[in-house]
């Protein structure tokens, strides 16, 4: 017996992989997960490139004729552009009123002055890469710019919602007692109002008071202030589970403060839950942004997002201009599918027990 124990085989000191390394290893095994990760990263890079102005910088320039055809169907008839051109051509020459017009003596002076100002006449092209919208803007560039706005709103809204949910969940789960009671009451209030009504109430208030800021700030705030409830509930459960674990007690024994126990010790151990929630809420908020922008409560009119593009597309489809609807709808569908599949894979990779 003692012979067996006396001579243990020498084990080389080995660092055991942490939670994230293990999860990454599992994720790499998952073909669907990796493929969707690639798609999501592609969209994020596109967003960054468009934000910094590398691509789609001049999306708002009117480069083509009205409803320019996509270049792969250049031969198709474009009645709208023809009608516009005819209108231009049919303008009758101005009637000569110079004998009764009191301003007539100054016409010449003005013409000279006008000639000094250089006007570059842009040659409007008949076709654009993926067609044009009513004002002849390039739909391809528009959809890139629109993706930037939509993804940015979804992502920043989700980050903010995860922060709010985690803070409140941590407080309720860690402290318990009256803090928990109060936050549960708060949670019940928010969940007893149907979600869409809650959003619309916030939107109404934001629109009339202007206290939520300008541009896309209101929509981000609306989405995150109404969307934190699910995250709060999950984080609270995690904190209740963890706050009695031995490692937290040990931290207390060596004198770690409450704050440090909550956010330095427990948070890294539950952060995988918030990562999955972040991914899930990004998808949800992107969808919500599209609908809100369509209704006119989302991004302001001088910006473009998938929602505003779809709002224009409704009337275009009736006259047979399908490309804007297709571009916005398809790019959104691809991103949302990839993001949802990635969420599933992340969950499997981070929490293999769940499967």
């Amino acid at each position: 017996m003692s012979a067996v124990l006396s001579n243990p085989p020498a084990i080389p000191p080995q660092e055991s992989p942490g939670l994230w390394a293990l999860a990454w290893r599992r994720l790499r095994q998952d073909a669907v997960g990796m493929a969707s990760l690639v798609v999501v990263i592609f969209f994020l890079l596109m967003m960054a490139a468009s934000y910094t102005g590398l691509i789609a910088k001049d999306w708002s320039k009117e480069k083509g004729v009205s409803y320019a055809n996509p270049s792969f169907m250049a031969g198709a008839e474009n009645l709208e552009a023809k009608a516009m051109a005819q209108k231009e051509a049919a303008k009758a020459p101005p009637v000569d009123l110079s004998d009764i017009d009191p301003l007539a003596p100054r016409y010449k002076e003005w013409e000279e002055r006008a000639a000094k100002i250089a006007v570059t006449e842009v040659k409007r092209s008949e076709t654009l890469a993926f067609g044009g919208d009513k004002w002849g803007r390039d739909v391809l560039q528009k959809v890139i710019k629109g993706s930037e706005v939509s993804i940015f709103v979804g992502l920043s809204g989700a980050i903010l919602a995860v922060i709010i949910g985690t803070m409140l969940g941590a407080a309720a789960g860690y402290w318990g007692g009256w803090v928990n009671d109060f936050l549960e009451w708060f949670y019940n209030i928010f969940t007893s109002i149907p979600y869409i009504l809650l959003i619309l109430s916030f939107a109404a208030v934001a629109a009339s008071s202007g206290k939520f800021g300008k541009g896309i700030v209101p929509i981000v705030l609306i989405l995150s202030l109404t969307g934190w409830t699910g995250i709060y509930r999950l984080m609270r459960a995690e904190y209740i589970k963890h706050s009695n674990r031995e490692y937290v007690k040990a931290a207390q024994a060596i004198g770690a403060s409450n704050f440090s126990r909550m956010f330095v010790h427990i948070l890294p151990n539950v952060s995988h839950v918030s990562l999955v929630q972040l991914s899930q809420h990004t998808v949800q908020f992107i969808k919500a942004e599209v609908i809100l922008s369509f209704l006119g409560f989302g991004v302001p009119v001088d910006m473009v997002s998938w929602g505003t593009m779809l709002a224009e597309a409704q009337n275009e489809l009736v006259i047979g201009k399908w490309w804007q609807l297709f571009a916005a709808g398809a790019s959104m569908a691809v991103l949302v599918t990839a993001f949802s599949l990635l969420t599933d894979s992340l969950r499997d990779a981070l929490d293999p027990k769940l499967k």
Partner: protein
Amino acid sequence: MVPTIVGVILLIFFLFNWVGGDPAMVLAGKISNPEQIANIRKQLGVDLPYWQQLLIFAKQVFTFDFGRSWSTNEEVSRILLTRVGPTLTIMIPVLIITTGLSVLFAIMVAYVRGSLTDRSIMVVCTVAMSISFLVYIIFFQWMFGFILGWFPVQGWSESFWKNLFTYAPLPIMLAVFVGVAPELRLYRSFFLDEINQDYVRTARAKGVPEKSVMLKHVMRNAMIPILTNVGISLPGVFVGSFLLEVFFSIPGLGREIITAVNRSDFPVIKAVTVYLAILTMLINLLVDVMYKYVDPRVSFK
């Protein structure tokens, strides 16, 4: 439940009376003098201290009297009552058909779990769910309304039967089409949880016919989470699918809310929000009671 109602009233009050800014500015319009604004403030009661405003609001909730709409001067209670009808005409068939179809499909898919049929249906569902509801509405309204002309593009009439059989079918079909995919996925997982249980194996081992295993043993147990889910979606029935109502010009509650938000018509939004919150709580209570009939193990304490 009572503390939650109090909380909802407080939250709505805080949002609209405190964060919401001065409604008199909105109502008075662009050309207005301070005297007019003071007058409007007095009419609306926003010149009173906050605690008095809160009392008035609480009184409004319990007496069902929210006064008149700020933009149309119609009584709020009348607005609510007349708009609920069209919404329910659309949403009750939607709820019944969607739930029925998804339960039916879910149990069939769960029965052949892991097969090619199962996996391909799941893939189709995932892809279908990722396309925006907006795209579906725009496309199908164009397709069936303009191109094929099977249904009127939009509209509504006075007669209930004409509404139900002429104007409602296309919106109902759209809502069902979009609603089935997520519910099918969810219910399939509920059925799968039950199918792998020991009692199912026992039932099979003692020779219970397959049909009765699925429809009696599995179905009854899976009904508990399904019932919860239907209960959660019930309050939404009253708001209706506001997108459908906007697209198809259905004079329902959803469209009314959108108009109210656009016009900053606070009394209407406040009334709808508070009453739907109360309704949600009542429905949750009702679902809890119904558990007892579905699951005899549940007992009230």
